[in-house]
């Protein structure tokens, strides 16, 4: 692990896996990391800017051994409104990148469909 970076593995919506260097000194969250590496098209992730208000950043956490921050009421409420929710669903925008999360693995949840 380089100083101030951790390794994060993200599986995108096409099923492709990306091993990423993620900075821990920029107060960045998983949603922002996905946007920074352009792993999902603009307008499909982070629509509410990371305020736990859109669920476009929903992801499945595949490393139960890592201790994530507890879910806030807002996050719980939002996941409750979202589709494709699983036991290990979290909002990427609520997971801030910290040293303790070195080795974090997440898969992006499918994009919700929009009516024509």
């Amino acid at each position, binding site marked *: 692990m380089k100083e101030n970076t951790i390794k994060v593995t993200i599986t995108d919506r096409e099923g492709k896996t990306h091993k990423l260097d993620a900075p821990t000194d920029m107060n960045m969250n998983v949603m922002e990391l996905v946007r920074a590496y352009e792993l999902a*098209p603009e*307008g499909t992730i982070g629509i509410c800017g990371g*305020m736990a208000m859109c669920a476009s950043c929903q992801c499945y956490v595949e490393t139960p051994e890592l201790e994530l921050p507890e879910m806030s009421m807002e996050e719980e409420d939002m996941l*409750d*409104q979202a589709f*494709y929710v699983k036991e290990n669903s979290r909002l990427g925008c609520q997971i801030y990148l910290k040293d303790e999360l070195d080795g974090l693995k997440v898969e992006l949840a499918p994009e919700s469909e*929009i*009516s024509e």
Partner: protein
Amino acid sequence: MIKTDILIIGAGPVGLFTVFEAGLLKLRCHLIDALPIPGGQLAEIYPKKPIYDIPGYPSVLAGELITNLEEQIAPFQPTYTLGERAETIKKLDDGSFVVTTNKGTEHHAPVVAIAGGLGSFEPRKPPIKEIVDYEDKGVEYIIREPNFYKDKKIIIAGGGDSALDWSIFLTSIAKEVTLVHRRTEFRGALDSVEKVKELVKKGKINLLTESEVVEIHGQDKVESVTIKHTQEGNKTLEVDHFIPLFGLSPKLGPIANWGLEIEKNAIVVDNATDYSTNIPGIFAIGDVNTYPGKLKLILCGFHEATIMVQSAYKIINPDAKKLVMKYTTVSGITGFDGVKKEQQKAVTTKI
């Protein structure tokens, strides 16, 4: 056909402010928005959140900023087509445009300013495989005409304000109202939650919590749906309408097919001059455009609108004399009603 000088697609903050800057140059504006109210992301996503980076406002609520913008542009009497999505554009021989909405409303203007943000806000669909087959055959994502549900059996799904409010409202019209929600708690206003509880007690709303609609059945239209309960398993309910209310999400939509140069879901513009697109007469401002170094901020959209209307003026008035930019503090502003707002003249008294 609605006629105007600048046709603005998108009534978000940037579209609204364009009316002001255009008004200063005596250009009239008409705005189209898919949402039923002006305000764009600020009205739809975060009306109650404070914004801290609007110059001169240490803090302003998003909803308040929109109200203020509406007040600021009122002298320029903008007109609106709300609740309709701009669908097609046609260039006429004289270089002007006709923009038609999904409901067939036609608009004619020499200049089109796309201020479409992240796109038009469209309802989110629950992931039920067969749902598309039943759209407009008993599945509706938006309630347009409540009387449509008179004496019908309806199921509303969702746990937010609109699911609660419509469930309450439709009890007085529909034959049977069932509200299906995944959890036992609701995100809506406390007042609405209490009202729903009361109506459940009175037997007017059939409330199914920890439940989800998972299947839709019927020959040519919705006849029944299967609901999955986390503990009790599946049950099937007879219904006439299934109304999933899971909020709205933006989608660039039809504008993507207008022949404009698009990059990463945004319209490429010339930021060195005037935010013009590859089609002369069409400009793109605010979150909807892209150029090197683009920042999606309200402030930046306001700047782009201000620059853009100068070029719009030249297209609309090709023979006019050169425009000279004036400060509003010096010139005041004269609305289309002829009322002039300006600073009070100092009173001087001779001794």
